[in-house]
């Protein structure tokens, strides 16, 4: 009923990352069994312990049930109909970017992530992951001068095996949940970051995940270790082509912060969301967790979730170290028939730990958007505090928003505060802005960015501007 004519006149911008790169890929056959896992491990020339890690995870996964508590509606996934390893064909060892297939470089160029030395981004080091493998990491040498390790996880397995053996699966154990188990069994690549003691990482690190194949899943793993008194800011971006089938993306991210270390992890997730009838799109089932192991350590998650047909993720913090800090800042926008169930878990174990949760959900079209969060105060978390704020905004009258806050406290000397609100962009608000000469779309976008401001303020500069634009783009034509 709101401005029907105007809305129908609005040009809906197509998903601009929807192209497919035509490149020869090496794919293994569909299906999942022990042989496939051995094959992936062999292809990556992995040490024994990692193969065992995978096989154990697989055995656990086989005994697990796919979770359904999030009440997400989707057709049952046939795990035997997925290709678990897909890599662009190229020389085994790439000693420099010159040996990377120009088509791949071109792909990342098109995505706005140039990798070649002349064009690469000046203040951000990038690890570019294409389907199952990392194809290039920029600024590796410069970072190495500071002792910072930034490489693909496959390379880390070879070069920094001790760290991998020590930390892989230490935050998200293989048995943690169905998708984490699956990932642990079949993960193919991802990023690895190690910041040595006392080092402030000289530039932002970033991974860019690109799914190209329609029939293969992406199962990447990210592991970030911040040693005592180190700091790092890590950014993650994701896009995928438009296919009318659903592609599974089940990633695991583990962060470890030691004494006084600080990790800031920011995500702008823009996987293909499917079309307006809900056909196609990525199933984004991700386990992200950080462990504040050290005293006064800090882990901060910020995310802008705009893509995927279904998003199911809860970046969490385990606050073990005394006076450690966990933060979660999230904007999740759903449109058309998208579903998002996202939130966080703040597990307070150490004394005087603090956590802040700010979640902003925007639902448009016929989408559904839920915040689900757990704040747990353990018996030793004396003097700990949590503040949560969960706001939902509805656009139109067919979208839905839910908030599910779970609070468990075993510690009387701790404080948990929760605030929640729901609002709707009303015809009267739009008319008010319009009657002052502000265009309809700008009016919507002003209200949405106003609503998200608390979260955008937490994003790194370049991300914040991008996020603002992305939201405006995603909402075009959604008000009606």
């Amino acid at each position: 009923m709101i401005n029907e004519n105007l809305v129908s006149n609005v040009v809906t911008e197509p998903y601009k990352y929807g192209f497919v790169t035509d490149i020869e890929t090496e794919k293994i056959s569909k299906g999942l069994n022990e042989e496939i896992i051995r094959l992936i491990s062999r292809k990556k020339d992995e040490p024994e312990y990692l193969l065992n890690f995978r096989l154990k995870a697989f055995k656990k996964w086989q005994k697990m049930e796919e979770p359904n508590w999030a009440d997400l509606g989707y057709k049952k996934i046939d795990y035997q109909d997925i290709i678990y390893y897909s890599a662009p064909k190229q020389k085994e060892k790439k000693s420099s970017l010159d040996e990377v297939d120009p088509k791949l470089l071109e792909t990342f160029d098109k995505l706005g992530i140039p990798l070649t030395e002349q064009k690469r981004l000046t203040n951000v080091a990038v690890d570019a992951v294409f389907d199952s493998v990392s194809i290039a990491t920029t600024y590796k040498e410069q970072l190495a001068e500071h002792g910072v390790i930034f490489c693909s996880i496959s390379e880390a397995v070879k070069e920094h095996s001790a760290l991998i053996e020590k930390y892989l699966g230490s935050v998200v154990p293989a048995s943690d949940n169905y998708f984490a188990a699956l990932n642990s069994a079949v993960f193919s690549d991802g990023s690895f970051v190690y910041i040595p003691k006392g080092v402030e990482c000289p530039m932002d690190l970033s991974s860019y995940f690109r799914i190209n194949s329609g029939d293969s899943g992406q199962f990447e793993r990210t592991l970030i270790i911040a040693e005592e008194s180190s700091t790092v800011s890590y950014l993650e971006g994701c896009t995928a082509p438009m296919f009318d089938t659903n592609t599974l993306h089940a990633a695991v991210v583990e962060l470890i912060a030691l004494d006084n270390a600080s990790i800031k992890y920011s995500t702008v997730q823009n996987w293909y969301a499917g079309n307006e009838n809900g056909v196609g799109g990525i199933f984004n089932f991700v386990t992200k967790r950080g462990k504040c192991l050290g005293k006064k350590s800090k882990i901060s998650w910020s995310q802008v979730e705009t893509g995927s047909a279904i998003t199911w993720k809860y970046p969490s913090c385990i606050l073990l170290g005394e006076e450690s800090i966990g933060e979660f800042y999230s904007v999740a926008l759903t449109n058309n028939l998208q579903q998002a169930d996202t939130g966080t878990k703040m597990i307070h174990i150490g004394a005087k730990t603090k956590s802040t949760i700010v979640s902003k959900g925007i639902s448009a079209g016929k989408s559904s958007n839920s915040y689900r969060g757990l704040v747990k105060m353990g018996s030793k978390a004396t003097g700990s505090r949590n503040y949560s704020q969960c706001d939902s905004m509805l656009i139109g009258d067919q979208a839905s928003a839910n908030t599910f806050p779970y609070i468990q406290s075993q510690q009387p000397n701790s404080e948990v505060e929760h605030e929640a609100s729901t609002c709707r962009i009303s015809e009267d608000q739009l008319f008010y802005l319009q009657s002052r000469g502000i265009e309809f779309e700008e009016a919507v976008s002003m209200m949405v960015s106003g609503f998200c401001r608390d979260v955008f303020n937490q994003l790194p500069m370049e991300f914040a501007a991008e996020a603002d634009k992305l939201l405006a783009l995603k909402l075009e034509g959604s008000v009606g």
Partner: protein
Amino acid sequence: MQEKMTGKEPLLEIKNIFASTEDLTILKGVDITIQPGEIHAIMGRNGCGKSTLSKIIAGHPAYKINQGSITFKGKNIKSLEPEERAKSGIFLGFQYPIEIPGVSNLEFLRVATNARRKFLKQQELDTFEFEDLVKEKLELVKMDYAFLNRSINQGFSGGEKKRNEILQMALLNPEIAILDETDSGLDIDALRIVASGIKKIANKENGIILITHYQRLLDEIKPDFVHVMANGQIIKTGDCKLALELEKNGYEWTDQLSQDS
């Protein structure tokens, strides 16, 4: 267009307007003509169609014009979007200004002002230039700069909201301003501030429509014409004395008129 301006072309001409919302006909043939420099007052009972009239002039999407025409400076504006009407110089002061959480009042005022300036082919103002302008206009309504850092109308008192409306009017410098019960809910001091703001903005070029229930606003701002509305029509038009009569005799007196007509 220029040739026509030589004569006395009305700023706003509303002819035989019928309008409805949700299939309920509210306006049943309203005519009103406003010349540059004129102040008109529209009075009448609640539900007589005053606010609807203001909304259809501003282009509210919930109201449908079934018949008649609205001409602004010689141009039919019936099919224009609200923002196009606003940019071209039509301003509606809301009876109940809308709260918009999260959007800063300052940013809002700047975007709105620049939209209007762009239309007038004036240079758009950067944040500093705008700050200077807005400080000057804040004086008019005796508002504190701190107001601008808050979200639009959020947590404003009734009087503050109305002053914010007049501030917007001052910044947008409209050619036609319709002020819908801007005086309601104001205490005497706030009323004086609002009224003096309006008087300072009124000039020989623009036209103002005051929708009000009370004589006290008209004591402050003397209208050239007073219209009495009832049941979706203007049933009587006169000068400022009509408002006094109305004050004395109440709306029952106009019911009588309505039946006579």
